[in-house]
């Protein structure tokens, strides 16, 4: 009951940004898909790509698939943007951080308070981006849409971008919670998230990508919990 009360409060605070992200994502991808369907089918018609080319190793890397080339950066920017906004909103903006003493003095442990925040943000990502991404994949894999339907990897790469958005949120949260000066260790969280992104983009193997993300998420989560439990409010 206490956790659900905290969760509801956090979700309500995420709501405007969830809606905004969903609306922007729907609007942008619907325009891009219309252009992309036209272009990609033309490419095939004029033999720029033959079937199978786009999924060969020599061309393939994150965002290299033609459709992903267009939608991928948008999904990435949107996801990272959502992560940044939610992280800043929860842990940086004075109007909200001023309510910390009221929030911390609840009859729950600090872990519960933080868990509610992290759960709400995960749910915000899942609710606002994931259904749309699933809808897009369902749409682009229909036989009449693309001459060469995108492979499953296209779908998985979208998930990677969504998860990178959550990693950005964790990095922002860690930086926000730090009481150090911004030019010293306070920047660690955001810098770490940036390094994770660069590392991810330099990888080809999905196993490596997910390993990097899993390890870095675990590091960020442990740092956030430790900082939050020790932090003064």
């Amino acid at each position: 009951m206490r956790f659900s009360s905290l969760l509801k409060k956090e979700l309500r605070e995420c709501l405007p940004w969830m809606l905004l992200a969903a609306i922007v994502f729907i609007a942008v991808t619907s325009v891009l898909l219309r252009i992309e369907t036209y272009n990609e089918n033309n490419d095939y018609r004029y033999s720029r790509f033959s079937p199978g080319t786009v999924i060969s190793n020599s061309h393939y890397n994150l965002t290299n698939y033609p459709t992903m080339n267009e939608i991928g950066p948008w999904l990435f920017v949107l996801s990272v943007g959502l992560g940044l906004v939610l992280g800043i909103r929860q842990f940086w903006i004075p109007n909200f951080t001023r309510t910390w003493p009221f929030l911390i003095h609840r009859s729950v442990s600090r872990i519960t308070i933080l868990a509610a925040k992290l759960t709400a943000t995960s749910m915000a990502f899942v609710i606002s981006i994931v259904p749309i991404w699933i809808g897009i994949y369902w749409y682009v894999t229909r036989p009449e849409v693309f001459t060469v339907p995108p492979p499953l990897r296209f779908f998985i790469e979208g998930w990677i971008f969504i998860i990178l958005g959550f990693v950005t949120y964790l990095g922002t949260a860690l930086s926000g919670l730090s009481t150090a000066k911004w030019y010293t260790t306070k920047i660690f969280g955001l810098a770490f998230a940036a390094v994770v992104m660069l590392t991810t983009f330099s990888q080809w193997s999905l196993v490596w990508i997910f390993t990097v993300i899993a390890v870095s998420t675990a590091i960020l989560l442990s740092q956030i919990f430790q900082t939050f439990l020790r932090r003064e409010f």
Partner: protein
Amino acid sequence: MSEIVLETKALTKYYGDSLAVDHLDLKIPRGCICGFVGRNGAGKTTAIKLMLGLLQPTAGSSRLLGCDSSRLPPAIRQRIGYVTEGHRLFRWMSIAGLEKFQRAFFPNQWDDKFFADMIEYFDLPKKKKIKHLSNGQRAQVSLALALAPNPELLIMDDPTLGLDAAIRRQFLEGMIGLIMREGRTVLFSSHILGDVERVSERIVVIDKGVLRAYCSLEQFQEAVRKVIFTFADSVPNEVNIDGLLHCKRTEKQLELTLVGIDDEQIAEWARSVRAENYDIVKMNLEDQFIEFTAPANQKRLFKWEER
């Protein structure tokens, strides 16, 4: 001796090089209404946050309801009401929403009727969002939220700051509602001495992080006094008397503010300096507090132990 619900031992807090609270020793028994007063930056908010475990002490310790403040478990927090400085609540929530939120943390002790009565007494619109309420209304919501769970210990950080006289009175009367509940302990910080005078039994005076006085309100009022000595010729050049807080001279008069000096000592000193006569002037609590904590008197710190 009654149970101690709030105890600090040499509680000290530094922010970098700056000392905010310096070896604070307090023992507040159950059922006590205690006013916590000090000038701006005296360390009241820091001390309260240390007591509630929101800040970590640099040295010393604090215990609330028998539990170490830095590790207050949820079950203990549930027994403590806290009104934050500036009444910072979730601005997007309505009063009804905030009530629902707060009630979830006090499943077996939330008093719906008491909350409804307080909201009605303060004439607050339940559907209105916090961001649309005035400062005074937010203070009233804060108080109602803190009191409805019927806490054993209520800690309020400058709850009447920025409120007009009428709202302040209403707020204090609401607070008295809690005091009427038997065995409740209240610690509230304030700049407004009239408020402290109205509801407190005991007073804690803190100045630059140092505990200057902790005693009953009557003791404080009796201890700090102003005496005007009149001289036939001229006033003495040197004033050497214990407990001197402040000294003001005119041609034939010497106005001294003293602490912890009884009538006999005053009479004796008057004789020793050959004063023609003297008058003990009654001071109100605000004047006493100002004299007692005036910066010019920092070097004349009077170590005052409760008698």
